């Protein structure tokens, strides 16, 4: 407590140092194609991140670590994306800046307005509306319909539904006693979640199916009083997984490439084998930024960004990224344990589980530990919707890290 100001400076300055060196290196790399706006954007991003961390440590009474960790992850991601693709990196800078703005906006809005736990019905309706909109207006992109574009801006509604689903589950279990009195009240949530999973299957978005199922299972396991229902749910999900394997050919393809990617190295296994080559090429310390060939992997800036990081910055950096996620999730759990408001307790837990599951699925996927499903690493991968929704989730987590009940008195 005494030298609090001094202590917080160390990671903040390290982050600043890391970004400065990396940006300098990137400017060297693109020295022939460098224009003024790129330099200004790059420098302003470093400035924004530094200032936000500084402001945050002054104004919030809650957790000070999560935003630091996340900005470190985002910095590693942006450096890698910028190195792979000049234009994507440029866009990503804008997404991160917007994300930080949204983080602060979410923080203030969620904190000011009371009564988030009473909106169960609205969360449901909004999610169902977004699902229907995706199915009706959606574009098919690499086998999955999960993009809609309105007025030139395209986004993934699933990313928003993830947050809505967490809020919905939390409001359900906060008002569990009230729901229990109704005849089918105990089964409301499970019904809605199956509806969501059904919608996602229609969209053929397997990664999201996995995220929603595990998120729901984890929260149900912790909060549901009806243990038989939890068991039944696990059994049903296992059977629907098997059924999905039999019915849908694209599920089978994922499974077969997982078992033996080398057999399909020219076709469906190309991506995963290239990813494995890239990781092994890097070794412990990596080839050095700009000296590897991460562009051999298709979709490298989105799903396979982790392989690119491992190739050019080394397995050690890859382990570092995983450790950063571990600390982030640990902090999320600690926030949840300390929170006395039940709604925000569940929300904090849900968001931490979301970050944990999402990063586990894709880290496991690219190293061929579990079957590959294309989802983004929160805060690291290229992509506007994912970045913005992750920062919104982080804003809610930041609110949950504060003492909420006392302020109401």
């Amino acid at each position, binding site marked *: *407590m005494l030298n609090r100001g001094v*202590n917080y400076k160390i990671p903040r300055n390290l982050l600043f140092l890391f970004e400065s060196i990396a940006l300098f290196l990137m400017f060297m790399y693109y020295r022939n194609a460098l224009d003024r706006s790129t330099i200004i954007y790059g420098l302003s991003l470093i400035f924004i991140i530094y200032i936000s961390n500084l402001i945050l440590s002054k104004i919030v009474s809650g957790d000070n670590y999560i935003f630091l960790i996340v900005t470190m992850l985002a910095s590693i991601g942006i450096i890698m994306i910028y190195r792979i693709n000049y234009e994507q990196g440029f866009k990503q800078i804008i997404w991160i800046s917007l994300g930080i703005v949204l983080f602060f906006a979410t923080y203030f809005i969620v904190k000011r307005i009371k009564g988030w736990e009473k909106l169960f019905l609205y969360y449901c309706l909004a999610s169902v509306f977004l699902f229907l909109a995706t199915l009706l207006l959606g574009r098919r992109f690499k086998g999955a319909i999960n993009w809609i574009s309105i007025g030139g801006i395209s986004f993934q509604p699933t990313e928003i539904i993830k947050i809505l689903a967490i809020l919905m589950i939390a409001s359900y279990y906060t008002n569990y006693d009230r729901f229990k009195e109704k005849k089918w009240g105990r089964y409301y949530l499970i019904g809605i979640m199956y509806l969501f999973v059904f919608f996602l299957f229609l969209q053929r978005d397997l990664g999201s199916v996995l995220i929603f199922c595990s998120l729901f299972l984890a929260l149900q396991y912790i909060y549901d009083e009806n243990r038989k229902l939890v068991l039944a749910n696990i059994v049903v999900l296992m059977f629907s997984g098997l059924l999905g394997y039999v019915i849908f050919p694209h599920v089978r393809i994922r499974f077969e490439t997982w078992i033996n990617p080398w057999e399909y190295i020219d076709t469906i296994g190309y991506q995963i084998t290239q990813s494995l080559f890239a990781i092994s090429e890097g070794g412990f310390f990596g080839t*050095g930024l700009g000296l590897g060939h991460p562009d051999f992997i298709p979709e490298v800036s989105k799903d396979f960004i982790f392989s690119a990081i491992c190739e050019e910055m*080394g397995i050690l950096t890859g382990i570092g990224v995983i*450790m950063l996620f571990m600390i982030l999730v640990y902090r999320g759990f600690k926030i949840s344990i300390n929170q006395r408001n039940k709604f925000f307790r569940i929300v904090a837990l849900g968001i931490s589980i979301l970050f944990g599951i999402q990063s586990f699925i894709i880290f496991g996927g690219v190293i061929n530990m579990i079957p590959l499903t294309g989802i983004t690493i929160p805060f690291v991968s290229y992509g506007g919707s994912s970045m913005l929704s992750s920062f919104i989730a982080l804003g809610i987590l930041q609110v949950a890290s504060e003492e909420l009940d006392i302020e109401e008195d």
Partner: protein
Amino acid sequence: MFNILSLVFKYVFIVIIYMFIFSIIKLIYLDIKGIRPIPADSGTYLKLINRKDTLPFKVKEYYPLEDNVFLGRGNDNEIVIKDPYISKKHLRIVKDEDEYFLEDLKSANGTYVNGDRVMDVVKLNNGDRISVGQVEFLFVNKE
């Protein structure tokens, strides 16, 4: 030129990232270490209920109680808490024949035991919640 820089910087990056992780883990460790175990020798103490890092001033996790303890903002008290909502001499806890009594010393913002404002003197029982200013304590008496 670029290749050499890149080769050198890759080690620098790894060092910085690990130093960053280490410094955050250290901060978290200090945060956890702040929760000290209950002092074994004293059977009666005040335990802080608020989370320590939510308060903008210095406050300890545990305050052992003796026969006569003053709490306030002034430096001559046994328990000093620099909360602006706490008066210079805010309250007194006295031990009398194995019973503890809390006396509010005409403080501006008052003292609350289990949510009720203390008008004069009140007897403390194990598990009572005492709130002064922005701080909330739990009264623990194991004797």
